[in-house]
């Protein structure tokens, strides 16, 4: 399968990928290396993983990173309560210390967290490590180890080797600079906001019923809005929300009802200062450009 056919298949499932992204994804799947996606929030980084899982008809295992994420939430943990109960239940059975130990430190008492789960699947899953830049550097170092060898060592059990290699996709918003070591383990693509043609294709893919002229206006407006100085640029998901809202209200032309249009902007503008920065006059100016 070439990267072009991957791109086509992605498009069929509803994701329009750029050439760069499709090639990087193709190589990362073929060469079994992680893929690092960077880009602003809302450009569809997470969606790539979901679509890949759908395409490969496999599980998507997601690890959402946050500050203070540690190995026990990301890799594994012992089910302490169950171990304790088991020890109590077999207390009068006269087992030797080794037998008890063997019993409670077995697979049954291991709580698998996303990373361990991902490497023990019989069918290679898609492992999405979302917003890796929000995790601490400590965790990043731990992740490096897992991603380079695809094995996890558990002191009580020994080393668990990967049954299959998961397709790993990491995303980052650039809130912290990632270490070079991690970057070098991965293939890289910078995902940008889609251009007008791509965005139009996305919109008609996701909302097939939408009127072609309205769709063009919506995409034009959102593209123009991204050029304004905003705190949070509206992403693709916001655009789709807004399109759904506008179409749902039965608007046929963006310039029809300025008042109503302004009210629907809640779908696109997500901070108070952005709301203040785009008053009705500016909205109308932008609409004027795309409707003409």
């Amino acid at each position: 399968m070439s990267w072009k056919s991957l791109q086509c298949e992605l498009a069929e499932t509803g994701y329009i990928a750029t050439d760069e992204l499709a090639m990087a994804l193709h190589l990362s799947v073929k060469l079994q290396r992680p893929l690092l996606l960077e880009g602003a929030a809302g450009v569809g980084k997470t969606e790539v993983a979901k679509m890949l899982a759908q395409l490969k008809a496999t599980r998507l295992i997601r690890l959402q990173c946050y500050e203070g994420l540690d190995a026990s939430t990301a890799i594994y943990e012992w089910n302490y309560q169950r171990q304790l109960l088991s020890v109590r239940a077999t207390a009068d059975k006269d087992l030797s210390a080794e037998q008890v130990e063997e019993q409670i430190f077995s697979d049954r008492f291991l709580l698998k967290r996303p990373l361990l789960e991902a490497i023990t699947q019989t069918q290679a899953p898609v492992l999405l490590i979302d917003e890796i830049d929000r995790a601490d550097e400590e965790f990043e170092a731990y992740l490096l180890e897992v991603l380079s060898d695809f094995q996890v060592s558990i002191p009580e059990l020994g080393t668990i080797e990967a049954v299959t290699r998961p397709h790993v996709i990491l995303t980052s918003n650039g809130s912290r600079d990632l270490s070079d070591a991690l970057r070098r383990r991965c293939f890289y693509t910078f995902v940008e906001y889609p251009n007008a043609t791509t965005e139009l294709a996305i919109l008609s893919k996701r909302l097939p019923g939408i009127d072609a002229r309205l769709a063009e206006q919506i995409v034009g407006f959102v593209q123009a809005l991204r050029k304004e100085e905003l705190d949070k640029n509206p992403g693709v998901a916001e655009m789709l929300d807004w399109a759904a809202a506008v179409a749902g209200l039965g608007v046929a032309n963006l310039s029809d009802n300025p008042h109503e249009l302004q009210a629907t902007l809640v779908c696109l503008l997500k901070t108070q200062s952005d709301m203040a920065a785009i008053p009705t006059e500016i909205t109308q100016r932008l609409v004027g450009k795309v409707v003409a």
Partner: protein
Amino acid sequence: MKATRFPATASGVSERFSGFMAHLRSNGLAVGVSESASVLNALSLIDINDRDDVRLACKAVCVNHADDYQQFDQLFKAYWFNRGRERQALRETNTATKKTSQSTFQPGVDSTQQLSASGDSDEADDNPDGDNDSAHSGDGKLVASTSTNLEKIDLRELMTPESLQRAEQLAAKLAAAMRDRRSRRRRAAKRGALLDLRRVMRASVSHGGEPLELFKRHKPDRPVNIVALLDVSGSMTVYARVFLSFLKGLVSNDRRTDAYLFHTSLVRVSDTLRDHDTLRAVNRLSLMAQGFGGGTKIGSNLQRFNQQYAAHTVNGRSVVIIFSDGYDTDPPEILASALQRLKKRGCRILWLNPLKGWKDYEPVARGMAAALPWLDLFAAANTLDSLAALEPHLERL
């Protein structure tokens, strides 16, 4: 588009690609032996006769940074199609070096053709990488010397975005040095290094003595909060922009940090400084500061700070940093009493004075002399170097 003609000796795909990797490396991309292997692996998976496919594959493998991502296509063209820029200086940090590096082009090729990105260039010499090193070695030195200079120049002369950014980074580093404190006591927590035995036992009673639920304890962070007061009076305007960037660095890295400007009156600027766009914030603030200018009332401003803000921003874990040259139009007694009152809150007070870095400076300004007894640290702040040198002092405070 004409392809590069390679010397007969460089035969085979792998050799040409190792040349390409060397070309990327010399242009600042972090590629090593493992990337070379990956590229060759990747080539086996794609149609090697399609130049666009090859470019995309190399891009996915070799680039690992957003900055390089934009640059890659041109580098690719430069190597395989004898065109475009050859060797941009390694991630320039200074506009001065940027200028020099942009005017350096591949020798042997007409520079006008280099500039027009669309026109086909002549077949250049067979060895595009050959005698470049000598032509560009001077370039590298320039980078080094300007970057070291940057730290020694008096802050009055520092106005470039890069130096402002550097000041901001420095501030973030200093703030981290100050803030890194952990308590000696332990508190109940969901995750922690130690068991909270008392709670575990208490909870075990309801399970017939089995310690089913485990509670933990950890040492909580007791971060230092920083309060910065910046003098933007007439005598300090030359330093204002750099200090403002510094202030921004302090503020934007921590929600607790508080910043104020003062001249004849006091303004709280923490929220303005949290603007994403450094340059915009700094420009806006320096305009604001210039608008007032004129005399300084350090004493009465500190008094006002004591009355209005200190109660909820300054406590025993605070470090108050005052950036001022100490020239005060108020009587020095006011300053002394205001500092004394501030000191009673248990905070530590730092005074950074740009004049102190000057040769033979003595704190003779009456205000400065009156303030000295209440300061935990009185330090110079006229170069980025002197700011950086504060780090060990701040750790001890």
